[in-house]
C-alpha cells in the first residue's frame, strides 16, 4: 500500500523569483495490486508526485509511506519507466535490461538470463544485441519496460511512458503492458495526459488540477478485467472519458 499524506512541494525557478506550487496538500492511498492513473494537464504535479513515490525528490512537507515505511530514497521495491526511455546508448538491449540488476550486484550470467526472459516477455526476441539507436521508439520503450520488470519490483512507476510514440504503437504497448501485468500482478502508478489511456488501463483515475497541484477527483473505472481490446465499444468507456473530459475542460478555464 502506498500512502501519500499532505504532500507539499514548491519549485523555485532558476531566477529565484517565480515559485511553482507543484503539490499542495496531496492526499492519496493506493492499494497493493491496484493500477492507478494520474491524469491532468501539464503542470498539475503528476510527475512530481510520481518522483516523490520513487524517492527521487524531497518533499517540502508531508510524507510518502510504502507498506507503512516512510520513503527516504529510491528502493529495490520500486522501478521506474521513463517518458524519454532513458536507455544507455552505449549498452545493447541485454545490458540495458540488465542494468538494474547490475547495480544490485547480480552475477552476470544470472542477470543476462533474466534479461533475456524479459526481452522475450515484451516481444523483443531477436533484438538482444541491438543498440537503442537501432530501435524504434516503441521498441525502445519495450526495453524500458523490460528493464523495470527485470528487478521484479512490487511497484511499477510509469511516467507518461507511451507519450512519445505514435497512436498505433501506443495501443499495442498498452495491450502488452496489460498482458504482462496479467501474468505478474504489480501495483502500478501511471502518469498520463490521455483520458482514453487512463480509462483503458486503470482501476482508478486520479484527476489532478494545476497551479497549485491538487487532487481534484478520483474516478473508479468499473470496467471488466481483463480489458477487451474493443473496450471503446463498452458504454461505460464513453461515460467515463466524457466525464474526465468535462473535468479537464473546466480546469482549462
Amino acid at each position: 500500500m502506498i500512502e501519500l499524506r499532505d504532500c507539499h512541494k514548491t519549485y523555485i525557478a532558476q531566477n529565484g523569483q517565480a515559485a511553482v506550487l507543484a503539490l499542495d496538500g496531496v492526499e492519496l492511498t493506493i492499494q497493493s495490486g491496484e493500477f492507478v492513473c494520474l491524469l491532468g494537464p501539464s503542470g498539475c504535479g503528476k510527475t512530481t508526485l510520481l518522483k516523490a513515490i520513487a524517492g527521487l525528490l524531497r518533499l517540502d512537507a508531508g510524507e510518502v509511506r510504502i507498506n507503512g515505511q516512510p520513503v527516504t530514497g529510491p528502493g529495490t521495491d520500486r522501478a521506474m519507466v521513463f517518458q524519454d526511455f532513458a536507455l544507455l546508448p552505449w549498452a545493447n538491449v541485454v545490458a540495458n535490461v540488465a542494468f538494474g540488476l547490475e547495480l544490485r550486484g547480480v552475477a552476470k550470467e544470472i542477470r543476462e538470463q533474466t534479461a533475456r526472459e524479459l526481452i522475450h516477455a515484451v516481444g523483443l526476441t531477436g533484438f538482444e544485441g541491438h543498440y537503442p539507436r537501432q530501435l524504434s521508439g516503441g521498441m525502445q520503450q519495450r526495453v524500458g519496460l523490460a528493464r523495470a520488470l527485470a528487478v521484479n519490483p512490487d511497484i511499477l512507476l510509469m511516467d507518461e511512458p507511451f507519450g512519445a510514440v505514435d497512436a498505433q504503437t501506443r495501443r499495442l504497448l498498452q495491450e502488452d503492458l496489460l498482458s504482462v501485468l496479467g501474468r505478474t500482478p504489480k501495483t502500478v502508478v501511471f502518469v498520463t495526459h490521455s483520458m482514453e489511456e487512463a480509462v483503458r488501463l486503470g482501476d482508478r483515475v486520479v484527476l489532478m488540477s494545476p497551479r497549485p497541484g491538487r487532487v481534484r477527483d478520483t474516478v473508479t473505472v468499473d470496467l471488466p478485467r481483463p480489458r477487451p481490446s474493443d473496450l471503446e465499444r463498452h458504454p461505460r468507456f464513453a461515460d467515463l472519458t466524457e466525464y474526465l473530459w468535462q473535468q479537464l475542460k473546466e480546469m482549462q478555464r
Partner: protein
Amino acid sequence: MLGRINRRIRWRSQAGLRLLSALLLALVWELLARRLDSLLLPGCVETIAALARLAASSELWQALWLSNQALVLGFLLAALVGVPLGLMMGRWRAADRYLDPYLSILLATPKAALIPIVIMATGLGLISRVLITFAFAVVVITVNARAGLRMINPSWTEMARSYTATEAQLWRKVLVPGALPAIVTGLRLGVARAISGMVSVELLLVAVGIGRMILDFQGTYNAPSLYATVLVVVFEAVLLLEASRWLERRIAPWVSQGAAR
C-alpha cells in the same frame, strides 16, 4: 553488411579525392618554385629528395626521439590531470566555481608567453619542455571533459538513481561512459596542441630535437631540408590525429557520424 560496403566505397572515394588534392597542391608548389626560382622556396621534388636524405640519416630519428619524449610525457600528464579535473568541474558546481577562473586565464593566455617563465623556473631540460607541452594541451582536455559531463542526458542519471545506484556506480556506469566521446575528442585536440607546444618551445628557447633542426637549416639557408623537416612534423601531426580519430570512432560508435569533429 550493406552499410559496411557503402562505408568502404565512401572511404575510397574520399581517399581518392584527398590524394587528388594533395597532388594538385604539389603541382602548384613545384610550378611556383620553378617560376620564382628563389633560394628561399625549394621545389616539391627537391624537398622530397631532401626528405629522403634526412630519413636515411640518423639525425632526423634522434631529433624525433628527443622531441617526442616531451610530447608523450607532456600529453600523458595533461590527460591525467585534465580528464579528472574536467569531470570534477562538470559534476560539482563548487569545484567549477573555484577552478574556472584559472582555466579561463590559461585558455586566454597565449601559451608561448609561458615558455620563458617555465624555463626560468625549471631550466632548459626535459622538465621544462614537458611542462610547456602540458600547458599547451591541458586546457582543451579539461574543457572537453567538463562539457562531456555537462551534456549527459539528465534522465540517465535520474534513471540510475531510481534503480538505486550509489555515487560510485553512477560514475562508473553512467557518467564516465556518457562523457567518454567528449573526453576522447578533447584528447584528440590535446594531441594537436601538444605537438605545437613541443615545437614552439624548441624553436623559441630550448633548441633541441626537431626544433633545433629547423633552426639549423634556417640558419644555413638550407631550404629543401628545412621544408622537409617541417613536412615531417606535419606528417606526425596528421598521423597522430588520424589515429586518435580512429580511436574516437572505436570507443564511441553510438555518437552519430554527423557530430562535430
